[in-house]
């Protein structure tokens, strides 16, 4: 559960602290520790905004600007989602991160038999451009960056987003979308895959290539260590696996003949924050340094922008508990602190009702207030990387660096991330660790307040977001309407052109744009891809 293991004497003296990443924490750190770990302030730290960026990617950090807050938001029909987007923005949220329902994530239309019971449940239902037009109505797309938490059909959603923005009169050069677009992490720990690995990675390459040329302010991928950590890996593994995944996507684009500096600055990362505070902070600092080194030394990047690890640090779902849910408000505050001390560009929190259902407005707004208090009252904007120079944090950062490099090497030795996932190695490792952690919690070796310690007290009634079956009905009715009103011959034509491009392994983005503009549905487009690419077969890990 992300917490360290505490070995205690009978008198409750803490004898040892073992972080999830395997590092033991000492009772005391002195300059000697920095010596022992080979700390070099010039090479290991430099200044914020200077290679290797350990202290931050910007010289002034939050002094120049606050982080962007973007709570994961969306449910029901696009109209309901639009209302919630506007509510959050009116309360001071500075970016959007759109949640899509499972049928949409899996490339199914709302009227697909397999979608039954899931339309609008965990996110907003999207079937066609019409839905995006409603979802983003009245949102200033030239000022608000929009995260799209979509992966297998990210290419479709990105094209749909561009089509929407252009319909509203925004220039494609001004809009900023960040489709999550990280299929490898789906195969490891989130499960919303459709196509086999090779074509799925190629689609990611297509979106990166297309963004590079057509959507200058768009970040085509948000590489996720987040979900792998949710699934059971350690913080060090979280970074190692994320970097190996990112490298896989880099290779896909380089293979097409581009230079690293043409595109990699559009990469972003999505990393987790739950668990031991020090471990997260050291993780983020080590990650920034290693990413910069990876790009400079391994890939020979010359443009400074290529070296910057831009991150959404947030979450962390797995840290939240079902028991005593109000505790999660407190946890959220500490997790947000970890993100701030870690220098996140963007952040989001799981709300206190995380273990129950998707957030009520009250829960979501509490998360926003958490950020605002941190930035406006507590002093997180005051200075950059405030923990720098701490004997403890600098030692721990170096040690995390070592752990991350070790884990990256393990993947290299296996032949890379695609191999590691195809064979099920990462999935097995993560599942095994998840089991060990759960055993640790059930035995009381890993403490979770309210769950296995301090469990007294009455159970709290949690207000639940209620699923509306009417949303599904409304959505299906709208879908039928769209299909009646659109030029169906055009749809057939655009789908046919798409299929041709897909079979010829051309970049499918321009065709996807045409399909979306013709109001082809997510299901219709995905069907074409399924016919061309087939479907992913999960490796058996038991």
């Amino acid at each position, binding site marked *: 559960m992300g917490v360290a293991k505490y070995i205690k004497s009978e008198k409750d003296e803490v004898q040892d602290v073992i972080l999830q990443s395997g590092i033991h924490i000492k009772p005391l750190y002195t300059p000697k520790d920095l010596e022992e770990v080979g700390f070099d302030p010039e090479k290991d730290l430099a200044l914020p905004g200077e290679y290797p960026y350990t202290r931050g990617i910007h010289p002034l950090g939050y002094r120049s600007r606050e982080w962007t807050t973007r709570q994961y938001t969306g449910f029901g029909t696009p109209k309901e989602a639009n209302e919630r987007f506007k509510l959050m923005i009116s309360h001071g949220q500075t970016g959007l991160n759109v949640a899509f329902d499972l049928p949409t*994530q899996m490339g199914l239309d709302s009227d697909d038999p397999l979608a039954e019971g899931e339309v609008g449940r965990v996110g907003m239902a999207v079937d066609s451009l019409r839905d995006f037009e409603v979802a983003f109505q009245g949102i200033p797309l030239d000022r608000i960056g929009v995260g799209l938490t979509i992966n297998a059909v990210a290419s479709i959603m990105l094209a749909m987003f561009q089509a929407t923005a252009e319909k509203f009169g925004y220039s494609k050069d001004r809009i900023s979308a960040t489709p999550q677009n990280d299929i490898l992490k789906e195969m490891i720990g989130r499960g919303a895959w459709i196509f086999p690995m090779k074509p799925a990675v190629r689609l990611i390459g297509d979106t990166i290539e297309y963004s590079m040329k057509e959507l200058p302010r768009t970040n085509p991928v948000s590489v996720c260590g987040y979900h792998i950590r949710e699934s059971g890996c350690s913080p060090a593994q979280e970074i190692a696996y994320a970097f190996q995944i990112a490298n896989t996507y880099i290779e896909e684009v380089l293979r097409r003949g581009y230079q690293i500096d043409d595109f990699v600055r559009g990469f972003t990362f999505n990393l987790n924050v739950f668990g031991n505070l020090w471990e997260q902070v050291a993780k983020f600092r080590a990650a920034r340094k290693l990413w910069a080194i990876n790009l400079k030394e391994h890939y020979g990047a010359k443009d400074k922008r290529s070296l910057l690890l831009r991150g959404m640090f947030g979450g962390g779902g797995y840290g939240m*508990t079902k028991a005593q849910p109000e505790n999660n408000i407190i946890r959220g505050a500490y997790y947000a602190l970890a993100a701030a001390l870690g220098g996140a560009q963007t952040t989001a929190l799981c709300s206190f009702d995380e273990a129950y259902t998707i957030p009520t407005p009250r829960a979501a707004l509490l998360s926003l207030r958490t950020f605002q208090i941190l930035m406006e009252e507590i002093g997180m904007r005051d200075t950059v990387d405030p923990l720098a120079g701490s004997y403890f944090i600098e030692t721990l950062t170096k040690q995390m660096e070592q752990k991350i490099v070790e884990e990256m090497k393990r993947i290299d030795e296996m032949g890379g991330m695609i191999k590691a996932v195809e064979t099920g190695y990462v999935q097995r490792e993560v599942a095994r660790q998840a089991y060990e952690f759960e055993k640790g919690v059930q035995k009381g070796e890993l403490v979770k307040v309210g769950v296995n310690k301090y469990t007294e007290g009455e159970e709290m009634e949690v207000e639940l977001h209620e699923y509306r079956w009417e949303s599904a009905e409304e959505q299906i009715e709208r879908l039928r309407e769209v299909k009646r009103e659109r030029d169906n011959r055009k749809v057939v034509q655009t789908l046919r052109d798409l299929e041709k491009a897909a079979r010829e392994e051309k970049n499918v983005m321009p065709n996807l744009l045409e399909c979306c503009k013709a109001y082809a549905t997510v299901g219709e487009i995905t069907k074409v891809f399924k016919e061309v690419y087939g479907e992913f077969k999960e490796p058996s890990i038991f």
Partner: protein
Amino acid sequence: MGKIRVLVAKPGLDGHDRGVKVVAQALRDAGMEVIYTGLHQTIDQIINTAIQEDVDVVGLSIMSGAHLPICEKLMKRMKEKEIRDIPVVVGGVIPKRDISLLRGMGIEGIFPGGTPFDESIRWIREYVKPR
């Protein structure tokens, strides 16, 4: 008496499998034979696997909140196929108020997230007879 054979399944579109994989390992360590279906299973696929693998109990793991429609569908289909002797258990994100509704469908064991392994293992040992 042979080992208890458990099918642990992920029905529908939900891809969150940490819980089901953890439970699978726990049941295996408790001496049961565990077959895991993998993700994105249809009701028919689950039932067919249950029959083919000759399991003693079917466990569903549902994290998306869609447990009521999914379980209703499964129980209906099992009835149609006249499968009467395989108990069904459910785990995942299950609000308290839905537990009686699930029982009403004939789901006998309900183990929402956080249920200790001991509890589910004890229940299965008590209520499931290997065939």
